């Protein structure tokens, strides 16, 4: 998106934090940790990953789901308001886990096999018996 390439890193970080309702007081700290070049958004997402991993430890979720799930739970549970510093204490994390969103249970793959629906052979030469 051309729209964000022309912005400064601090602006991008501020906008990113706004998407999770976190105050821009944390911009310098996050900007320092973010990648200066390349995919800045992905690098900011990676900063959320440790917390997201704790919230969604199951293997069934991939990284992007863990981060999205964390954001959703955080936003819905009012994480930013309750913990403006975005420091995740164990107690708060446990509360988040209780309220996390789970779109689907873990897969238990077991394939259904198509059943034969054979028509009886009408021609005498095709009859086996």
């Amino acid at each position, binding site marked *: 998106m051309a*729209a964000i390439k022309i912005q400064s890193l601090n602006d991008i970080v501020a*906008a990113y934090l*706004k998407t*999770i309702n976190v105050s821009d007081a944390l911009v310098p700290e996050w900007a320092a940790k973010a990648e200066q070049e390349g995919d800045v958004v992905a690098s900011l997402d990676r900063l959320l990953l440790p917390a997201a991993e704790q919230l969604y430890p199951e293997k069934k979720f*991939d990284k*992007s789901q863990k981060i*999205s799930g964390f954001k959703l739970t955080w936003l819905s549970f009012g994480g930013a308001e309750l913990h403006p510093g975005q420091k995740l204490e164990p107690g708060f994390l446990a509360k988040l886990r209780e309220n996390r969103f789970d779109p689907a249970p873990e897969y238990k793959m077991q394939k259904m096999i198509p059943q*034969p*629906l054979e028509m009886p052979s009408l021609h005498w030469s095709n009859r086996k018996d």
Partner: protein
Amino acid sequence: MSHELINPKRIFMRRLKVFGLTGLSTLLATLKWVSVIPTDSELVTKFLMVLLFVLTFGWIALFFWSSLFGFFELMRKAKVPGIRWVPADTPLTSKTAVLMPVYNEQPTFVMANLLAMAQDLAKTGQGKAFDIFILSDTTNPKFWVAEEKMWLEAQKLLPPEIKLYYRRRAKNVARKSGNIEDFCNRWGAEYDYMIVLDADSLLAGKTMVKMVQLMQANEHTGIIQAPPQCINKKSWFARMQQFAGKVYGPIVSAGLAYWQVGDSNYWGHNAIIRVKAFMQCCGLPVLKGRKPFGGHILSHDFVEAALISRGGWSAWLLPELKGSYEECPPTMIDFAIRDRRWCQGNMQHMKVLVSKGLHPVSRIHFIIGIMSYLSSPLWLSFLLVGLAIALGREFFPPVYFSETRSLFPDWPIFDKVGTISLFIISMVMLVLPKFMGLIVYYRQEKRASKGALKSTLLEIVCSALTAPIMMMFQSKFVWDIFAGKDSGWNTQNRDDAATSFKTAFSRHIWHTILGVVTTLVVWFYAHELFWWMLPITLGLMLSIPISMLTSQESVGKWFLRHGWFVIPEEVREPKLVADARRFLIKLSSQTSEAGVLDVVKDKKLQATHLLMLPINGPAPEVAAKVLENAQIKLDSFINHGVVPDFEKDEEIALLYTPKILQEAQLALELNAL
């Protein structure tokens, strides 16, 4: 098959009674018919007349005798034998998935029904034994986003012990059957049973618990079908169907249950299925050949019931299970549109009918399904042959003295009394079950309205007028299917929107013309048939106003106010239905018409969308140009506020590209800084 609680001889006797009486009455009527066919008819004509009579009369006779036995069963309040009933407080020791497959349905409506069912389940105290799945095959991106939005909203309203899951398929292979199969492949091993719903289904919590209890107690049972009752609609057409379903439905269901016993059918929804049995037996093959007969099986339910029966499991239709609801099409045209799809599905069963190893009763289910539609062109042919004979007599008068010299003229004999008596017998067989249903209704339903008798009489008149229109619709459907036309997959209209003149004209103009032409031909050339043909020609001639008038909600409400076609559910709405309505009002404040812009603007919705995206499976391939166009439109919205007019595939392409969605949201935030 499991009939350990019922003697197989008793099952045999039940079937012998229904089919023996059907065969015997058809035989006697046919013998009479042979004697009343004009003696001067050609041999081919005679043969055709007899063949068509056997098929059409046999069809009526089966319906009559089955209903008669259903009537007796209901009068003596007999339960379906062969199944072990259990006390209501039997604890659930199993896990059941409640499946709601959806395809471009109104998400608020679907979610309101699900929430009402979840709340009702929670009230039973056994809610923990159930998980609910929305299995979306939605292709409209706006509905897709709205479904996710509704899922998020529903999480706040859901009883805590019940989980609500959502999965959307990127490719809807094999339609509803493929959707259910996909669920089984991914999660089937986790569940003992699945309750399959339709988008308009409502099942009471107690009914669902009862279904699971029955499954637990009857370990060889594969399927239990709870007959659904039509409710909720307001148009005259729909209210007549609701009334007919309420009054005549029970004896039809009880009649079917009487002779089917543990080899019943599955109607595709409002049923519980043993997942293990389904996964073992019901993987559907793709039929050889081209559409409409080849390809994926459309009416999968009958085939699944046949396969589960072939696998040694029993299937039960249990009229005793109440609290099972659905909605019927609001207008005659919507009814016909649904019929087109069902017709193709049933015609496709001609290929399955002769498959090896199927239970004879499963084959009868297929024949009944096929005949439900094939009977229309058969009736039409029967009428046309009869008319042709009458016209033939007008244009080619009988030869009274043949070339061989004879003292006596060769009088063509036409047994008018015999014909009238056969007509009266046929009418009685068609109408009597309706009155038997009415007797049961008055006897069993304390809340039955006094207007039921007058409603029944008017319903009979209306059915007579609409029957020829449906006959023409279905005859065309059968013709189209044999000509190789596929029905496609359209969402059923569930809104009470009246039929406009334009729509009615385009759908019924040929019915009207045919009605007028037939009336004129009969009046001038076969006058003795005029009054006989009038019930048919009148319906056809008036098809446009009938279709429009019966679709009107205001007319339906007028009848309601004046005590016509009233069902008890309209007088005192069941709690479950009222709850669904309340949830619908609550959810309707959230717009159901969402879209990719909502995913960009709404932080929670974007997080929800991205959380769910990998569950959908791999993204479909999209042309680079489509995504490029979509990005340009999104850019001009972000930077210049131009509201984008996304094409459907552009919106889908964006919804499958998380990076663009995330960056667009950031760009919006940046603009706001």
